[in-house]
């Protein structure tokens, strides 16, 4: 995932990790990947939920040392 753009949304409550991800996904080109870093416990569920509903591609989701690393490819 070395080519992914990293969005560091650790330790943020507002606008929050998913809102940060949506902002960066809007700026990305189709096919680009973004790795979201989040310390929000809910990101493990709500980010994949949005990615699936909107139709992007979830590449990877794992929690390492209390930080969610979630990689998404923009599909449309």
């Amino acid at each position, binding site marked *: 995932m070395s080519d992914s753009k990293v969005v560091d949304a650790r330790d*943020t409550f507002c606008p929050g990790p998913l809102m940060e991800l949506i902002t960066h996904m809007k700026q990305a080109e189709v096919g680009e990947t973004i790795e979201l870093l989040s310390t929000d416990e809910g990101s493990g569920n709500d980010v994949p939920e949005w990615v699936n509903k909107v139709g992007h591609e979830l590449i990877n989701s794992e929690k390492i040392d209390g930080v969610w690393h979630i990689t998404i490819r923009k599909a449309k």
Partner: protein
Amino acid sequence: MRILIVGGGTGGTILANNLARRLSSEIRGRKVKITMLSASDKHMYQPGLLYVAFGQMTPDQLYRDQQSLLEPGVDFYVDPVAEFQLDHNKVVTKSGKTCEYDMLVIATGSRIVPEQIPGMTEGADTFYSEAGAVKMFKRLREIEEGTIAIAVGVPHKCPIAPVELVFSLHDYFTAKGIRDKVKIKYHYPIGRIHTIANVATWAKPEFDRMGIEYETLFNVKEVDPENKVVRSEEGTETEYDMLIAIPPHAGMEVIENSNLGTGGWIPTDRHRLTMEGYDNVYVLGDTTNLPVSKTGSAAHFEAEVVAENIASIIKIGIPVKDYDGKVYCFIETGHDSATHAMFDYKNPPDLKPSSKPMHWFKMAYNQMYWSSVRGLL
């Protein structure tokens, strides 16, 4: 030492006044010069736009002359920057002047870009501009029945405003005696009704009490003004009689044109508030790419940190303070009650029950802002 502040909004103005006081002897001794460049000779209290949209304030009440808000030690010019040349420590202004600096603060703010969503400019009302707020109030007065849809673009300034809008609409139509004839449907981009979990948890029973319909995971894809339909990226749609949009925002064009940051947002160190790669360039408020609310409150607290650090660098050679992500928000919960929230990078907001005194305090703050922006509060 030449300090150049670009932008005369909340962050730039508080910073300029704070610095002018901290460095008053250096300014008198001509060792420090503070210059501010802004796009306007007027300063707007932007939170007041919500009141304009409900006929509670008129636009003229939102403005003061920018010069009147500044300490005498600040040289103020209405001449916005057209190009930043950071590698040469200078900017070129719209009038063609070149301005060199030793320390630069960029506080150019953000702008609404409804044109990024097809049909939004034509099909939606908004209170995120003066003209829009006045137009929205005129439209609200005409409504006798039907569906008012609320759609939220990303990113947007003042993340609490969509929730405040819902409370205000409910109170407005209740006072008119037609609340039972007006359906209010709220759409929000993520999987709960506000991005802050505690606010969402607090607001949900309030929405239920008021009979607000809501749909989450709704990112606005397009507005169809002819058929009065708003559609989402997620594949759903809502018919409306009046659509109120929180438009998506972008940074200022000069930021992108000078290649300082994608979308007009400048990569910024979240604690030092310096621009990445430039130790003598600070960034404030909406202009940063920080995962912090785009609010006057964030700009205010950031400005105090930057002012203290620039002054200490001049006096003792090093900065003394880190920004901790602090934000404080009033939350209007209708036309006669409010609550508030404070949070930082480490501590989520802990919402208190809404009350009338907090609303009165917010009303008072609407006037106290002018003391705040002068750096007196």
